[in-house]
């Protein structure tokens, strides 16, 4: 096995035993990037020298016998939505093309405290608005399983990089499925924790009441390791919840006897790809054979999730993106002759079409005369969607659903039809609206060799149940060992 293929857990062990050095590991990832990046386009920014220097510094300290935190010397990468002090943070937008933040966000700071190695910043949909990483201002990222296909989005660069071994693991963000959907389409593990579990401070905001940070990794154990590091209360984020963080690796158990798994019937709809459906049925069979109890449940308001989401998220985004005005940082149009033009031209030239579309939608639904019909209505439907889940979790421990209705689609296939693109998030959006934790993990490959993912959802702050169910499945199957032949 090559070094860049190691899981985080394996690398931690080998580093501790001094079988490998962080410099070797980092260099292996960098070499892998060099080999594959021209095909994949996962990264926006590479921090090559700083990464090697950091790796060597950790190696020196290890050689001296200094006590080191678990993630010391582990090469990871970050979606370019994470604010990193001194390292360009673009959010894949022209408007932040040259933005060098003067501060670190909380999740990043926690990784820095662990002495991690930052390989670079990963491509994404502009401002996380998209499901295919095609809206990035800089480049389109390819799916490492088939370069003609999208990697999913918005954390498509993260999913592609992890699947291709360009880093050992990555952080993404998920507003409507942006971790889970690309994880599913690239055959890796991605978890969106409960809203409030991980601080949003220092994460460029898309839709504040829906955004959440989470790890994207090769397997379930790595997911638990990274979540252990980044979870926890942050006094700088008012929506972060002050609740102890359990050691999620303690939940990695293979015995699921008596575990109640709910299957919402509304998710097995027309338009669900036959191979995806088959993979899910196989997974259910797998669980059954492991001793879990499968229960059909109902989430009656599922069909309203997409319209609800595409009112609330753009509304919040239209306000969150007002700060990109060309005054204090970011792009200012050189063509502006007065103040009004400074605003209009900087924003029109700085934002891409999908971002503008959402700003327009959001501005419209909040504007006088429409607020009640759209925004307030959607907030009320959000309550109904939350209640659906609350009722379901009276009956079951976790819910199991497909992550996406289909495997990855072709580049360009949906980019001209916004509504069609929005519907590709149909199974993940509910979870954000409710604020619940959800994980996608690999559960099959299509006949074309594209990964298929399944989603486990649990009640608030019950990530442990997800890790438990996911690990049991993973250990009983081989899907997580499959890697693209790139």
């Amino acid at each position, binding site marked *: 096995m090559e070094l860049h293929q190691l899981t985080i857990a394996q690398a931690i062990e080998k580093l501790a035993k001094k079988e490998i050095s962080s410099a070797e590991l980092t260099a292996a990832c960098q070499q892998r990037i060099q080999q594959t990046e021209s095909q994949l386009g996962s990264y926006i920014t590479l921090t090559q020298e700083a990464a090697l220097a950091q790796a060597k510094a950790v190696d020196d300290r290890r050689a001296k016998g200094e006590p080191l935190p678990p993630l010391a010397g582990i090469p990871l990468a970050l979606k370019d939505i994470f604010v990193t002090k001194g390292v360009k943070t673009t959010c894949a937008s022209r408007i932040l093309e040259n933005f060098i933040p003067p501060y670190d966000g909380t999740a990043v700071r926690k990784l820095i405290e662990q002495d991690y190695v930052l390989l670079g910043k990963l491509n994404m949909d502009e401002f996380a608005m998209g499901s295919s990483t095609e809206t990035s201002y800089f480049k389109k990222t390819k799916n490492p399983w088939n370069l003609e296909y999208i990697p999913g989005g918005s954390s498509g660069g993260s999913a592609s990089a992890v699947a291709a071994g360009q880093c050992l693991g990555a952080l993404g963000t998920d507003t409507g499925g942006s971790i889970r959907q690309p994880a599913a389409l690239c055959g890796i593990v991605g978890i969106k924790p409960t809203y409030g579990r991980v601080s949003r401070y220092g994460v460029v905001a898309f839709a504040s009441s829906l955004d959440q940070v989470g790890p994207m990794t090769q397997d379930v154990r790595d997911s638990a390791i990274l979540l252990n590091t980044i979870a926890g209360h942050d006094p700088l984020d008012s*929506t972060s919840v002050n609740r102890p963080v359990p050691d999620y690796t303690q939940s990695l158990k293979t015995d699921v006897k008596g575990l109640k798994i709910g299957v919402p019937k509304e998710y097995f709809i027309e338009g669900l790809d036959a191979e995806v459906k088959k993979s899910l049925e196989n997974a259910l069979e797998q669980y059954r054979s492991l001793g879990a109890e499968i229960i059909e449940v109902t989430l009656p308001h599922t069909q309203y999730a997409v319209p609800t989401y595409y009112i609330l998220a753009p509304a919040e985004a239209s306000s969150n993106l007002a700060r990109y005005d060309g005054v204090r940082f970011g792009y200012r149009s050189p063509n502006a002759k007065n103040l009004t033009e400074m605003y209009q031209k900087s924003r029109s030239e700085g934002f891409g079409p999908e971002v503008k579309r959402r700003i327009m939608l959001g501005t419209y639904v909040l504007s006088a005369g429409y607020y009640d019909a759209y925004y307030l209505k959607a907030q009320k439907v959000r309550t109904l969607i939350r209640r659906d889940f609350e009722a379901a979790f009276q009956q079951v421990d976790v819910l199991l659903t497909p992550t996406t209705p289909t495997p990855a689609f072709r580049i360009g296939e949906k980019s001209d039809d916004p509504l069609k693109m929005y519907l590709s998030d149909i199974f993940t959006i509910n979870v954000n609206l409710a604020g619940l934790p959800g994980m996608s993990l690999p559960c099959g490959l299509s006949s074309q060799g594209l990964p298929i993912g399944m989603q486990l959802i649990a009640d608030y702050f019950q990530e442990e149940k997800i890790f438990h169910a996911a690990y049991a499945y993973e250990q009983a199957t081989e899907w997580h060992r499959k890697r693209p032949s790139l």
Partner: protein
Amino acid sequence: MSISYETVIGLEVHAQLKTESKIFSAASTQFGAPPNTNTDPVTLGLPGVLPVLNMGVVEMAIKAGLATHCEIAPRSIFARKNYFYPDLPKGYQISQFELPICQRGWINIKVDGQEKKIGITRIHLEEDAGKLLHDFGDSDFSHVDLNRAGVPLIETVSEPDMRSAAEASAYLKHLRDIFVYLGICDGNMEEGSFRCDANVSIRPVGQKEFGTRAELKNMNSFRNVERAIEYEVKRQEALLADGKVVVQETRLWNADKGVSESMRSKEEANDYRYFPDPDLLPLIVDAKWVERLKNSQPELAHEKSLRFQKDYNIPEYDAEVLTADRSIAEHWEKSVQGLKSLEAKKVSNLYMTHLLKLQKETPETFERITSEKVIEILHLVESGKISLNMAKEVLDEVAGSDKAVADIIAAKGFVQISDTATLEQTIDKVLADNPDNLAAYKGGKEKLFGFFVGQTMKALGGKANPQVVNDILKKKLKS
């Protein structure tokens, strides 16, 4: 016959709260810092930052609400008010819209001896914007200073209960006094820590419906508020007299020209798209917190004045002067309570004629005159060791140096002679030295009493206790 109109005024008052840090971040609020230095990532609206509410701000808002008889909302909501302006870093202002922290209050004002209750619709929390400089450096540009951005404000919205500029001014002054008394705002209109917009309309006397209102801005003194309102009322009356209509608009007061100017041309149709701020959870104020603040609420000027009149038997005028400034009122009361026999009225005179002047003229050294010092000095007056006039001079010295009271008195030679034996001796000598005057006095020329007092004082270098001298002289002259 001309119609007579009634004026209807409602005020919106913005008061900057005197916290150390900003409403949603830990940046300093200190006035006068170099441009943009009171900033941090939150103030600057950098990508990824989040607001966290300052508890001190909430506490001050509750105090304001309690002092104005408002209901304190157990749950209130922060909303975003969206608009673009270079002094607004995030492109929205965090404010309160649907559920403010205080609602339904009132205060009493007094105009021409008449009391009147003015309703307060709401008091809500919000953040201030930064400042734009239009005449710095290159004249093709404006310059943005964000030091003020994020400074906490409370906006107090009155009911349209005022009927004249004088009432509006009285309301404004009273509100300011309350906030200053509470120690939550320094109330400086010129520096902008206390700002007022006025909604003014007129209607024919007897009509119930309100007329169309104009919103007046940019009035940075009490005087200008009155002038602007008076001007606006005349303007609206003239319009109606000409058969024209009043249009709803914002008008800027130009104090130099003494006129207001329409802002319509500059103002685009605004749609603020208020919605609950997803970054801030509901502000929950529990009843215990309110109760605790209620119990620690200071006595306000008006109540204090009434109590001073009753408890210390001082005139209304004195009580009002003393209570206009909370620190002086507390200073005075502490002094009076530390004394044994000196009348409160005398102490009030000392404050009004002397200490208030010192406080105003030399505020920096006035701090040295603590109530303890005043008590120490007035004890000497009570025991007859020095006179009230001497006391004033001693107080001046206390303010001007760190010397001990005893040393000041010694240095000045301020030892009042009250010792009866010494005084009797001196008086006997004065009477013996002036037999003619003594005879004249006894013959009915009582005016000469003053002569004997003067001679005695002179003989003792002005240090004799005049009260004791009087008493002894009276006794001796009778015999």
